[in-house]
């Protein structure tokens, strides 16, 4: 129990946990049905009422909700409470024009802080720690989510946010940060820079890092741990269900414990929608159990994982999900920003370039970089340069991500046989 923030829930007997899940589910279903027209129609179309879902298994009767559904609710159609009761707004990242807007009541914010405190305590953090949060503070959920968790835990918080790598390192050294919260790629970049600067990572106070918001491999974990001389822990969350705090690794790092008192996880076959058993890999589907402002029912995350109900050595009884290895769809995640190739394509087409293009993802000094190669009929060097700049500016503005544009001559992009591959991922994720 030493490393649990809410041992009552984190180590709860499964039968008792399921009772609580059922109770919270009934409330969530009624709340969503009564206050969100989309869910009311979803139920009505399926010939169901919230009162028909009387067990956790019955939840399978409820149709899925997708990212597209949520996007259509822009901005507030999915809010289940009046705006006067919404204390905070965040958005999903990297979507063109209209992101998914999520709201939090005061109670949602309180719970969110607890969920984030769980992540940090599971990594051994306490009052004596100095936590450097290098997630962007803004509409992105990462910064504020961890900030509240670290404060609740009683740690000393450095809201470093989005500063340059050099300043991050200065802050880390001068303020004696003992923990880092960031994107894994960001941590790698800090590690590389330390090496360049000739700083011995053992001279830092840093001992543990909490990384998430983009997929990262065991190889990346080893690199981070070697370069920073820390223990690197994974955590998972997404804006649609409230941001970080869905699941987290404990010291044994055998999968991520899902905070099941707040989220009901299912893994489905992405093609048939059928619910899969423990150990079977499929798409993670989440239902929130205690959200007031933004309840979400059976949300298809698009992330591939599997669930394990085997007991964990840490004493937590919460189910573990395997580390997310990939996506069901073609969504790509670069520096914590989610985007679909189709969004890039739309922008390219508006400049009358293409139609063939290739998105290349690679890593430079530990940082994810994106480049798009696209065919253009323009010939003048000056015009080509100007066009490149204009497209780059538009991509950055609409996607929130800097993407280098490389214009190619017509026929310069080889269309491979069959389905054209539009993304080339050279990062070692």
């Amino acid at each position, binding site marked *: 129990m030493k490393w649990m923030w809410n041992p009552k829930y984190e180590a709860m007997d499964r039968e008792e946990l399921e009772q609580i899940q059922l109770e919270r589910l*009934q*409330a969530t279903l009624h709340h969503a049905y009564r206050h969100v027209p989309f869910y009311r129609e979803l139920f009505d179309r399926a010939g169901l009422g919230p*009162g028909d879902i009387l067990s956790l298994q019955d939840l399978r009767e409820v149709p899925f909700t997708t990212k597209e559904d949520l996007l259509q609710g822009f901005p507030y159609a999915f809010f289940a*409470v009046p705006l006067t009761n919404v204390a905070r707004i965040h958005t999903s990242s990297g979507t063109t024009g209209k992101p998914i807007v999520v709201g939090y*009541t005061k109670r949602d914010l309180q*719970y969110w802080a607890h969920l984030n405190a769980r992540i940090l305590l599971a990594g051994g953090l306490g009052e004596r720690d100095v936590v450097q949060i290098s997630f962007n503070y803004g509409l992105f959920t990462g910064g504020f989510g961890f900030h509240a968790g670290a404060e609740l835990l009683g740690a000393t918080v450095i809201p470093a946010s989005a500063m340059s790598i050099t300043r991050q390192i200065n802050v880390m050294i001068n303020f004696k940060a003992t923990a880092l919260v960031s994107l894994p790629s960001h941590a790698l970049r800090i590690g590389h820079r330390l090496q360049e600067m000739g700083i011995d990572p053992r001279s830092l106070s840093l001992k543990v890092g909490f990384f998430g918001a983009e997929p990262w491999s065991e190889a990346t974990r080893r690199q981070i741990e070697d370069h920073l001389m820390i223990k690197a822990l994974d955590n998972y969350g997404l804006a649609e269900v409230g941001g970080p705090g869905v699941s987290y690794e404990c010291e044994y790092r055998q999968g991520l414990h899902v905070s099941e008192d707040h989220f009901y996880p299912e893994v489905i076959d992405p093609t048939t929608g059928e619910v899969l058993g423990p150990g079977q890999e499929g798409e993670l589907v989440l239902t929130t159990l205690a959200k007031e402002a933004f309840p979400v029912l059976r949300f298809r995350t698009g992330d591939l994982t599997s669930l394990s109900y085997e007991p964990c050595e840490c004493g937590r009884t919460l189910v573990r999900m395997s580390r997310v290895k990939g996506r069901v769809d073609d969504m790509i995640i670069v520096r914590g920003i989610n985007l679909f190739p189709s969004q890039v394509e739309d922008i390219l087409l508006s400049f009358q370039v293409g139609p063939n293009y290739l998105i290349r993802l690679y890593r430079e000094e530990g940082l994810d970089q994106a480049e798009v190669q696209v065919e253009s009929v323009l010939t003048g060097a000056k015009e080509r340069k100007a066009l490149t700049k204009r497209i780059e500016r538009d991509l950055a503005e609409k996607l929130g991500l800097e993407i280098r544009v490389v214009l190619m001559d017509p026929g310069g992009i080889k269309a491979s046989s069959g389905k054209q591959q539009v993304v080339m991922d050279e990062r070692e994720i």
Partner: protein
Amino acid sequence: MLKARRLKVFYGRIQAVKGVSFHIHKGETVAFIGPNGAGKSSVLMALSGVVRKEGEVILEGRDISQLSPYALAKEGIIQVPEGRQVFSSLTVEENLLLGGFPKRKDKKWMKETKEWVYHLFPLLAERRRQLAGSLSGGEQQMLALGRALMGDPRILLLDEPSLGLAPVIVEDIYRTLRELRKERSMSIILVEQNAPLALEFAHRAYVMESGAIVLSGETEMLISDDTVLDVYLGRAREDFFD
């Protein structure tokens, strides 16, 4: 300690409780709040066995959903009815002794508990020979409560103890409830229309609307949250649906 799953209550063809699930721990106070007609009292009556119900009620691992009201009372599930239904033509003391009917064979226990009830409600002690019908509203509520305590409740079911009483008397009753909760560790399921009062007294609460539980949580979380009052208890309903 007690778990209910998919509990339904019907009055003829009208479904007053639509398959609710809830639980209560030993020594815990849980409140059911919500507007009039939401089904709160029906939940209590289902637990005490006086209305027909469907679903599971599990007391310490045992299904008690089929037990009669008398058998349930012997299990320690005892209801203080709404509207202070005391036997007006009997004396205060006779009312109390009736409450102890399931424990009538244990004379020593009866005597001690009666004295404890008089200690909790000194007013009842003063009026022990008086007819219950001559008591004031507040005193009748105290008597109804005292009578339930005589049944040795493990789970005390309280239906609207503040209904129709002056604020100062309500305060008095809740003060006594706190005292008895401290002196004997018993679980209390409370139905109240006065939500702030219930939230202050209970550890956890379930909010009901139209026969369904639409929200649950620890009361300290619910109190600090305007949303509960606004959205669930109807303060801002008009704004909401415009």
